[in-house]
């Protein structure tokens, strides 16, 4: 349980930056949705209120994650791993039935298992790496990859390329933090990229790999030259870049972005919410938000640094990797330097599963950080 003393060790910079990001998110979601969304007729506060409820639920869940000492978690990791795989398979099964996307539906409630799956993966991998640090031979890297493979395959089958990228980011970040030789990781990344490039080339030149459709590859690679097909695969990237760029230094003003308000921007309250910030708040706004993220990630790294044991450091490294990959992939997408993969911007994009997961992640970080000193009884 929590000692009163431990609360004093809470990192208020980290917590403050998270609160600020959630606040910015609520504001921008309101701006993106108060006029309603294409094809959805709801009141102006519908999305904000839902996001706020999820923030509260997420806050409670994050606080709950603080309560139980993270050192007690590894004993549940097998069970969590099984639950994660079952949830991910359930998604695939429900896709077969209803043709839905990455969602599991329980009546009116929707839930994306791939979101918490990332955190479960962090805990499971951290537990394993604590016992088996990959700091010596290449063979030590095999097991972590085998642990990562099943969820990765299940997620790619959805297919959710963006989340798979995040899994890869978490895996690499944790392996690096746990002591793997950078050149080995580099070799793995390099060969992965090579395989991807070859596969993309084959698919685009008519070879049927059964796994992906050519249009998926085209969409993925549209950011390389969005003007090749500006009305289809390049549309999202172009509209997003127009939105961000047209914000210029000071932005068009809150609630006044034409790209946002007139629906030129796709998925404006979810995947492309950073473009809304860029358009309405300008370079000053995007700089401020990037600053908050920098603070968050910097302090997250700090948690890894001060963790009292490798388990805590691994967990902190995993959560940090998760935030960092999300940020780079999402913001990179809105700026036209990353593929359009459709993953949310942490704390800001509308979406309950995502917000809940990220706040839980913050809970994990604070859990580790709070317990950085050995407590003597």
């Amino acid at each position, binding site marked *: 349980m929590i000692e009163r003393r431990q609360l004093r060790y809470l990192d208020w910079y980290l917590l403050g930056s998270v609160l600020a990001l959630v606040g910015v998110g609520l504001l921008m979601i309101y701006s993106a949705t108060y006029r309603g969304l*294409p094809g959805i007729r709801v009141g102006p506060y519908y999305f904000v209120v839902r996001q706020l409820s999820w923030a509260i639920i997420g806050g409670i869940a994050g606080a709950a994650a603080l309560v139980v000492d993270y050192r007690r978690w590894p004993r549940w990791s097998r069970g969590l791993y099984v639950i994660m795989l079952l949830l991910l398979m359930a998604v695939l099964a429900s896709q077969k039935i209803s043709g839905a996307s990455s969602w599991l539906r329980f009546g009116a409630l929707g839930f994306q298992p791939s979101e918490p799956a990332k955190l479960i993966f962090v805990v499971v991998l951290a537990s394993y790496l604590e016992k088996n640090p990959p700091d010596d031979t290449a063979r030590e890297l095999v097991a972590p990859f085998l642990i990562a493979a099943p969820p990765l395959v299940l997620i790619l089958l959805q297919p959710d390329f963006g989340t798979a990228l995040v899994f890869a980011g978490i895996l690499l970040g944790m392996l690096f933090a746990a002591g793997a030789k950078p050149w080995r990781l580099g070799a793995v990344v390099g060969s992965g990229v090579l395989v991807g490039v070859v596969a993309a080339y084959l698919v685009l030149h008519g070879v049927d790999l059964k796994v992906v459709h050519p249009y998926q590859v085209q969409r993925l690679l549209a950011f390389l030259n969005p003007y090749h097909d500006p*009305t289809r695969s390049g549309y999202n990237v172009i509209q997003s870049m127009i939105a961000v*760029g047209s914000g210029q230094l000071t932005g068009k003003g809150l609630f006044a972005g034409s*790209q946002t308000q*007139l629906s030129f921007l796709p998925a404006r309250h979810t995947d492309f919410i950073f473009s809304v910030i*860029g358009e309405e708040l300008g*370079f000053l706004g995007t*700089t401020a938000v*990037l600053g908050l993220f920098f603070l968050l990630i910097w302090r997250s790294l700090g948690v890894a640094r001060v963790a009292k044991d490798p388990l805590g450091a691994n967990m902190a490294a995993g959560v940090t990797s998760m935030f960092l990959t999300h940020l780079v992939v999402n913001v990179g997408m809105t700026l036209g330097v990353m593929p359009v993969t459709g993953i949310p911007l942490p704390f800001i994009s509308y979406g309950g599963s995502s917000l809940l997961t990220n706040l839980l992640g913050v809970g994990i970080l604070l859990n580790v950080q709070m317990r950085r000193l050995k407590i003597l009884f």
Partner: protein
Amino acid sequence: MSDEQEFERRLRFWAILVVAVFALLWGRLAQLQLVQGEEFARRAESNRLRLLRTGAPRGLFYDRWGRVLVSNRSSFAVVIWPDSLGPDREAVLARLAQLIQVPVQQIQELLQAGSALPFSPVMIKTDLDPATVTALQEQRQDLPGVVVQEMPRRYYPYGSLAAHLIGYMGAISPDELREWQDQGYVGTDWVGKDGLERQYEHVLHGQSGGEQVEVDAWQRPAQILGDLPPVPGENLWLTIDLPVQMAAEEALRDEIARLDRARPKVAHTGVAIALDPRSGAILALASQPAYDPNILTNGPNRGEYYQSLVQPPSALINRALRGLYPPGSTFKPVTAIAALMTGKTTPEEEFYADDIGPYGKKDWTLNSGLPPHGWVNLARALAVSCNDYFWEMGGRVGVDALAEYARLLGFGQPTQIDLFPGDLAGNVPDRAYKARLYPNGPAWQRLWYPAETLDFAIGQGYLTATPLQVAQLYELIANRGRVYRPYVVQGLLDANHQLVSETKPQLLREVNLPDAVWEAVEKGLEQTLQPGGTAAGSFYKAPYLAAGKTGTAEVAGSDAHGWFAAYAPVGAPEIVVTVLVEHGLGGSAAAAPIGRKMLDAYFAERKDPPPLPTWLRDTTGSATEGRKLDTPGEHPQT
């Protein structure tokens, strides 16, 4: 190195990575928002702002008594803004294709052809039915980039009536666009292609207005930022008299149908013209076969329809202005005038017509098994259309004087009517013409022969004229030498039906001849319609006194053309009619009855005038003088 230090090292590496990543993202932001910010701002504006053209309502056509001849009806068209189709382009096109019943393939082709200009809509289908419009409006959320647009269409309530005079419309051609784009025309405009629609295109078109509209991603207007109302086109107040035009069209159609049944191997066509000799105003102008401008302008298969009209006998040609025919016996008054003026005969001279002319030419009487004409004077020769008499006169006058008088009386030169595509000049032959005809021929071929003068004297041979020129000859006779420039537009009316300009009669020619000459000719024309004359049968018990002439112009190897030209009432002529039935066999049988029906329609309306619309009752000025029904016009000469 301890584990602790090693971990520190790794974290430092990681921190550098984080800083680098943020620096890259921040740099990219600076590039997009600061360096290229203005360019993106412009593009956001062009996303958001649309200048929607509001087409000006095109001017209407009214007949001389204010009856609507051409109007507009509202219709809906579906257009695509290609830049706004969004990422699900294929799905949108498939959905649209199903709704409007057009193959996706065809839509793709239209987009391909129409996307040359960026940010400009492509017309996909016009004339949507109301159910389709509703369906499109309901589903527009699923149809980004697809816009239903109101688009007035031209409507010709009388179909093919006066088709060549009215004309039709079509998409602006690249050449027209190049020439007119300074005047505000754009590539989706429709413009007049023939007749008055073409002649008065710039008056009818008006100035399109514009609305600067903020649109959303589906091109739905979010708010209107600025508005420039269109300036409607001006209306044409025509000189056409609807009942006379209708009578002409109907009679022509019936006669052509009758001939088609009797002589199925010959293509029959026809022209009927009526004009007011006091001003040159055209009262009716019919050319058949004609086309339906509704189909040619709006029909879904207008391309095929156009192709079918090109086939001979081309229905696209306005034969009244551009058909060249030997005028036949309708030319005889010219020969008569030439003979009188050169002193080669007198009105009283009696000539014995044995109906065998020089070189053994036989008159039509002998060819039809009738006795020869016997003793005739000038008037009688006109009335019974005695070729023998006019051969004799032609021989006496000679080709030089005959050509001189033909030109003096209006042949061989365009009439200058204000109607696209203008009229042809026809041909008045003379010695020089014959030499020109065979520029490299041997001398004998380039010579003019007396036998050719004889053909000329009876309106045959090398002489050709348009039906409008023949009508003008009878206007000249009716007016005793005065000819006005023919016109079909009485005035231009603004949107409130205020007269903005009017056509004043314009004297083209004044030929001063002694009264005795006019009287002699008119006497002959009068007798033509009286018992014993060639058109007597058609004018039995006519309630007005008319004077005229039939004509049968022989055509080598085919049936002769039938002509009729007349004016009425004698003494104070108000109307001249001219009828040509190509391959109608004879003027008396084919053409004169049509002329009778037109004159009847004119005088029936004169007796029982139609109610006037308010704007016409209020219209004053010289344009309406002599046109008010309560003050029937006076003969300008008296």
